């Protein structure tokens, strides 16, 4: 479970494609689900449904961004997303 979280984080940190970064986030959450299932008392249904809803929302919003970034920049390479700095 920790390995999955660590690997997902590494994917987000090192991959430059927007889609891969999103997959990294999903990977982290997958690891967390494994951890939550392993709890002796299990996770409560309300919390589990909430997490599922939240992650779906996040993924939808990320896909909107992903598509717009493709349309605007011509690729999903986050190396181009570095114009904002001080």
């Amino acid at each position, binding site marked *: 479970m920790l390995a999955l*979280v660590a690997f997902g984080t590494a994917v987000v940190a090192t991959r430059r494609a927007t889609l891969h970064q999103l997959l990294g986030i999903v990977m982290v959450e997958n690891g967390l689900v494994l951890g939550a299932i392993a709890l002796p008392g299990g996770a409560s249904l309300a*919390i589990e449904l909430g997490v599922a809803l*939240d992650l779906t929302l*996040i993924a939808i919003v*990320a896909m909107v*961004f992903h598509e*717009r970034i493709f349309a*605007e920049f011509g690729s999903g390479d986050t190396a181009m997303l*570095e114009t*904002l700095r001080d």
Partner: protein
Amino acid sequence: MTSRETIALLAVGLPSLTAILVAVAPRRAVQPVALTGLGLAGLAAIVLSIVALADPGQLEVSDWVVIDAAGGLMVGVVGLVALASAIASPAYLDTAPSGLFGATNGPRAYYAALAAFVAVLTAVPLAGNLGAAWLLVEATTAASAILVGLSGKPRALEAGWKYLLLTSLGLGFSLLGIVLLASVTPGGTLELLSWRSLSADVPAGETTLVAFLLVLVGLAAKIGWAPVHNWLPDAHSEAPPPVSALLSAALLPAVLLVAWRVERALEPAVGADTGRVVLMGFGLLSLAVAVPFLWRPLAWKRLLAYSSLEHMGVIALGVGFATPIALAGVAVHIVGHAVAKALGFYAATPLLGHEPRSAGHAVTGIARTQPALGTTMGLSLGTLAGLPPSPLFLSEILIIAGGFEAGHPWAATGAAALLALGFVGLAHALVETTGGSTRRRERAEAPGLGAVMALSAAASLILLVLAGAAFWLPDTDIVEALVKGLG
């Protein structure tokens, strides 16, 4: 259901209903429906705040909902900023480019996302357990990321993407901490993690400490505490001004309240000293990172964003010191910062029309060509700098005094020195922005100035009352309730 719970239901339900109505309303009705709904929601939240603060000793605590003094205060701030953002929105939409959803659906998408954002934001301070609080904080990310990227410009897309990615990753670490906490708790389910059961049931130990740090680091990414603040200046500068105001004035302190509740609840397990030192560390680091940027000529909204980083640092120090005086300072600071910062962001709409360069550059001499706008910006910046009689001046003094009282003279001295440096930086920015030399055309148009002037008048009144309240607050029941927490 008690009367407080009914009002809380209204405060959360009204904006949720507004979001749905806006999504299905005919195109002409979108704006009136949204403004009415957001206005009523803001009023309900303010009423809840007044009811909660009028009798601060009375607690409503269940496994899912908590209504206490700190939460009441925060809900009031969210309501106030939501109300003001609704007033400032039409002027922004008049000048805004069509953006992500095109000219026909742009306003509908904007208002629906704004109402949904306000709904979850109002619910965050009322969450009664750690799991629910996490869910709501994560939901604010989804709603606000779409608002940050709404203009569809490359810079806005970049800011929105960074915001979405960094905060969801951070919150992933928080959830890891929460799962760890649940695993050491007897019974081991996520359902039991209400604030009271956290203090009662979580055993001390290394796992608990690691879990506590993970939860806090993840929340820090959302609060914008250094060193995990990278998204903050980008998102605040690229979002529509009414949204920037909500992000900075309401979202950051609301999540900070969650972090504070976590720290308070876990004090028996990790030790009061450890927990408070972590908060103070985040506070000092945020101050130290923010202050050098306040000295540089930054674009208006970026300057305000770095000032948010500074003020979140101050609030973190205050809750870390945790003495009655420091907490009185925190209460005044949260409200004062919200009013002044939101006003500053609202001024960005007319400013952009008046001086298009202000999107990416520091501008000078606004009061020479648009006295009313310059005065508003000066009011906001002067208050944020802590120029007396600003309530933030008084609250910073209260917090630093609280630091000495709590026996952390070094942290308090460091904070005082950094705040003084920050004051000089912002005071310089204040003089340059309002009075500096400029070659702009006299009285060039400033669209939407009317709404901003009305908000400016209301803000000056609130700030003056607040400055008075800072003298009265330290001995009241409200502070006593803040110190006592949920225990």
